[in-house]
């Protein structure tokens, strides 16, 4: 394995690419890490988020049976607490970075783009903190049994 970052040869913007050489990707640094994170977290979320959506919204009466008693039972299990917390963190990071990628295309002025990205980053961080506090501190025995 090469120890230095391989820099791909510059290719013309609209020229044909040799077949089978794939799409462009970042060559290094922060952009390469976020590029990799989007794909890895996407694969993990394929299990976590699709599983969540099927369990909570489709199967076995779906959202009709979701109420406080249901959460009380569900979050008595460390497994589901861990599932929901990991999904919270990965989905927020994946989504906020996705929004950042979109601002690269549609918001050209540097200051405006920075302002929008900062807004979503702060919102994401605040929601991650709120969700973490709720998942960690929720004690099913604190409330009357269903």
């Amino acid at each position: 394995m090469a120890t230095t970052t391989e820099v791909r040869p510059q290719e013309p913007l609209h020229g044909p690419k040799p077949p089978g050489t794939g799409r462009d990707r970042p060559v290094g640094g922060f952009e390469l890490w976020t590029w990799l994170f989007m794909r890895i977290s996407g694969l993990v979320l394929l299990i976590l988020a699709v599983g969540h959506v099927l369990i909570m919204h489709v199967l076995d009466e779906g959202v009709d049976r979701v109420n406080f008693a249901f959460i009380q039972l569900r979050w008595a299990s460390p497994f589901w607490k861990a599932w929901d917390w990991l999904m919270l963190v990965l989905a927020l990071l994946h989504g906020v970075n996705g929004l950042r990628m979109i601002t690269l295309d549609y918001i050209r002025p540097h200051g405006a783009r920075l302002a929008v990205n900062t807004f979503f980053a702060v919102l994401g961080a605040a929601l991650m903190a709120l969700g973490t506090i709720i998942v960690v501190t929720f004690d099913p025995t604190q409330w009357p049994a269903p």
Partner: protein
Amino acid sequence: MSVEGDRKGRLGPLYKGHEGQYSWLLHRVTGVAIILFLFAHVVDTAVVGWGPDAYNRVASVYHNPFVRLLELGLVAAVLYHSINGVRITLIDFFPRLTRHARGLGIATVLLFVAAMIPITWIMGTAIIDLLREG
């Protein structure tokens, strides 16, 4: 206007990727829809910390046929974004698969439609039941 004409760049910085441009657009639109819902969903779920009365009042929002239609749309968005994301990841991790880009694109759509048929049936009948209750 011929496709060749478009491809010479007369339309400026437009994506000219045939079917690929629609999957690219759908990936974006579903992604934005999901993250905007997620921002609200974290807050509504956090209400469980305030006990049964507060949370059950929030959960009762779902007892509404229109909200349930949005819910079906959310499930479709998550599924499409996931399946298409796997296609993108496969092509990016194994660049030789670009030779099969068309087949993978067709497989993505088929898989999504195949999954949505039973899901639409299950969620759709629940919505109709809700409408009958009035």
